[in-house]
């Protein structure tokens, strides 16, 4: 079995104050809009328990193509510093098989335009998996959806 390891950092300026952007990560109905419903067809079972030791989960379906099937996210929150930092571990599963595990840190800092958001992800991908390049693309798409909430 092949295990690919990769990390990436994405920096994005969001046109809102750090506390406001933080709320979009912390409140289920806000996060649902950009995280669970911004991409492939959600199964409608997104759940968020935003606290240290709490979890987040959701599923989406891809109807056709190389990624066709049921995809599941499972997150556990490790550290939360209000309006400043979130650390979590998450896995992605495809048709019931865990194919990646990642350790992620998100920081929120003030900037002239609003909030400087930094997402650092350290991951292991168990082939077959989407891999780090596609994963980064997926995270970027989610952050674009987040940014659009405040445009």
């Amino acid at each position, binding site marked *: 079995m092949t295990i690919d390891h990769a990390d990436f950092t994405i920096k994005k300026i969001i046109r809102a104050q750090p506390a406001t952007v933080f709320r979009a990560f912390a409140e289920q109905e806000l996060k649902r809009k950009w995280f669970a419903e911004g991409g492939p067809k959600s199964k409608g079972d997104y759940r968020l328990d935003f606290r240290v030791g709490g979890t987040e989960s959701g599923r989406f379906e891809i109807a056709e193509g190389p990624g066709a099937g049921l995809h599941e996210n499972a997150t556990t929150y490790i550290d939360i510093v209000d309006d400043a930092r979130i650390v979590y571990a998450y896995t992605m599963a495809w048709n019931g098989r*865990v194919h990646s595990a990642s350790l992620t840190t998100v920081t929120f800092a003030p900037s002239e335009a609003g909030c400087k958001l930094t997402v650092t992800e350290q991951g292991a991908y168990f082939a077959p998996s989407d891999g780090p390049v596609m994963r980064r693309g997926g995270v970027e798409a989610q952050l674009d959806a987040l940014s659009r909430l405040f445009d």
Partner: protein
Amino acid sequence: MTTDNARLDFARVIGCSRVTLWHSLIDPTARSTWGPSEGDVLRFTATDTREGGSDVHLCGPKADPGYEVTTLWHRIEEPDAACFTEVMHHNGKLLSASQVDYALGKTDAGSRLHVTVWVSSFVGAGLLDGFQAGWGSALDNLTRHLEATT
């Protein structure tokens, strides 16, 4: 408030079967044997070793093992690979989170083990050196223990 990150890689060739090596890496009782350094102890307070489960252990000096480590198991593919997150606190203060994966293979000499550790330190970059030394020492303990008992 800073976060310091690093990737650590380790490799060992150990003169035992993959099944024996796997057991020592995953079984809590076995981990208690080779995990701690000289003079230290590793004691589990909760075990649920399965995909999606978690273990909790205390480690440190025998008189006062003040480090609490929570292990979140992500993937367990016996006897080839495993992946988990470890969250470490000391006397209630969060020190670090690390994601670890084990990859096991066969060699003419027995078994090959690759360990990759992604570590995030929340108390400064110095802890990253501690992870390098700690994992190296633990894997040396594991090698000695297995080669002495198999």
